[in-house]
């Protein structure tokens, strides 16, 4: 269901066509924004729209789409008691701007998204794997990474077994 309330109007007035789409899904507002302007939109959301709390930052992989990743930012405003979801579409190999400067909590969340999806966050202070070992090859939450896939070379070398399955 398309969304066109005051909030979206303010966003659109400020950022124009950098706000690509807006809709609600199960009464939750979703805003698709230009990946290149993610930081300024984030700053605006935090400072002017009082979405001062980054609840979660994650990604979704749509391999068939032209820009395969959604980077999803879940925001919350203590003042308005309202949630807002920002999405930016990022293609394979493209960098996404890091929002660590806006919310410190994004640090680990972006590392996790990098770890799991291989999305490179530009401007991240310490972008390395967080849950998987540093030398691991592959990004497991991508759709083309099968559930039985593993970095066999790493497993063999470090665990001394043929397979972790």
């Amino acid at each position, binding site marked *: 269901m398309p969304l066109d309330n005051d909030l979206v109007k303010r966003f659109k007035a400020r950022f124009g066509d950098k706000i690509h789409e807006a809709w609600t899904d199960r009464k939750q507002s979703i805003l698709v924004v230009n990946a290149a302007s993610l930081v300024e939109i984030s700053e605006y959301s935090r400072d002017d729209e009082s979405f*001062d709390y980054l*609840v979660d930052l*994650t990604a979704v992989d749509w391999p068939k789409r032209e820009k395969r990743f959604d980077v999803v930012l879940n925001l919350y405003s203590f003042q308005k008691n309202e949630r807002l979801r920002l999405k930016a579409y990022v293609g394979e190999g493209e960098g996404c701007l890091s929002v660590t400067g806006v919310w*410190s*909590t994004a640090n680990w969340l972006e590392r996790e998204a990098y770890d799991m999806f291989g999305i490179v966050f530009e401007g991240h202070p310490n972008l390395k794997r967080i849950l998987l070992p540093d030398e691991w090859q592959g990004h497991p939450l991508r759709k083309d990474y099968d559930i039985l896939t593993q970095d066999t070379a790493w497993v063999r070398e470090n665990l001394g077994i043929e397979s972790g399955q």
Partner: protein
Amino acid sequence: MADTRTTGFPGVEQTVLGADEIIINMGPQHPSTHGVLRVKLRLDGERIVDSECVIGYLHRGVEKIAEHRSYQQFAPYVDRMDYVAAVSNGLGYCEAVEKLLGAEAPMRAKVVRTILTELQRISSHLLWLGTHAIDIGALTPLFYCLREREEILKIFEKYCGARLTTHAFRIGGLQYDTYDGFEAEVKRFCLDFGHRVDEYEQLLTENRIWIARTKGVGVLTAADAIDMGATGPVLRGSGVKWDIRKAMPYAAYEKYEFEIPTGKNGDTYDRYLVRMEEMRQSNRICLQAVEDIPAGPIMGKVGKVLKPPVGEVYHSIEAPKGELGYYIVSDGTTQPYRVRIRPPSFINLEALDKMIKGHLVADVVAIIGTLDIVLGEVDR
């Protein structure tokens, strides 16, 4: 043990005693890192100059597994994340899927869910209290806490057959109705539990050593807490009066009266007080809820095969450790397209590096304890 060759910190190499600073690896095998957390500490004497958390030792790829299971099949997996509060995990997941389906659980199911979840919060906080106290060196509270936790686990066991990984709820409601005497048992526990909390407080709250060890340790200001994304008791300890049970009520919380305790200074002591008060408030909710559990069905209309319409939903609950969120994307099939779990422990743990800087080694364990992390949830 302590690795001196590859320190992982720029500019520091080869130090056993030659240099002023030493590096120690706390964990992943350490008595008080609450699991397989590893913290690399750079020490000047006993003071922490720098630190780095290394996590992932317990990574099981829960989010990946979710994409290969049907909605119902995945439900037991969430119990394995925060394994000391499995009921809360299950509640969050079931409600998220219900929201995605547009279904709703009947009132009776909601009330029973509320009771069990609040009991789980008490049991999780009890385990936290016991281990936190042991970290700081008070040996006795743990056993008192376990004694009461045991009562709660017995209720769980009678209700659904499991004590730890309960899988107590189903999408759409409950599988089992309450057993005979459920109300009486919960009530007996709740009436007794108020005094028990007083007993723990007697041992700790005004103990001078306890105060000295916790006051002013690991201070997190309200602004910092929000910036770091801290939730739950950690956020409330910093003075932010925010609780999802009040802000965005779920289950049957609207019906009950309870307070949100907050701290002032955002230190370990305040977080301790907040959790102690939370136990009392949970107890209060349980007492109110168990007084009248509405009659009626326990399962809503959800069908045998779940095919949520295309779309996505984010639903979060106030788990014992903080905001536990599920972001589920559906592509219209029987398996979720993506399940993202927003783990409170993971995000609270992020604040650790900031909180321990400048403190002593002894404070590190106090601060890890006060963050109340469960590594199963941090690593998923």
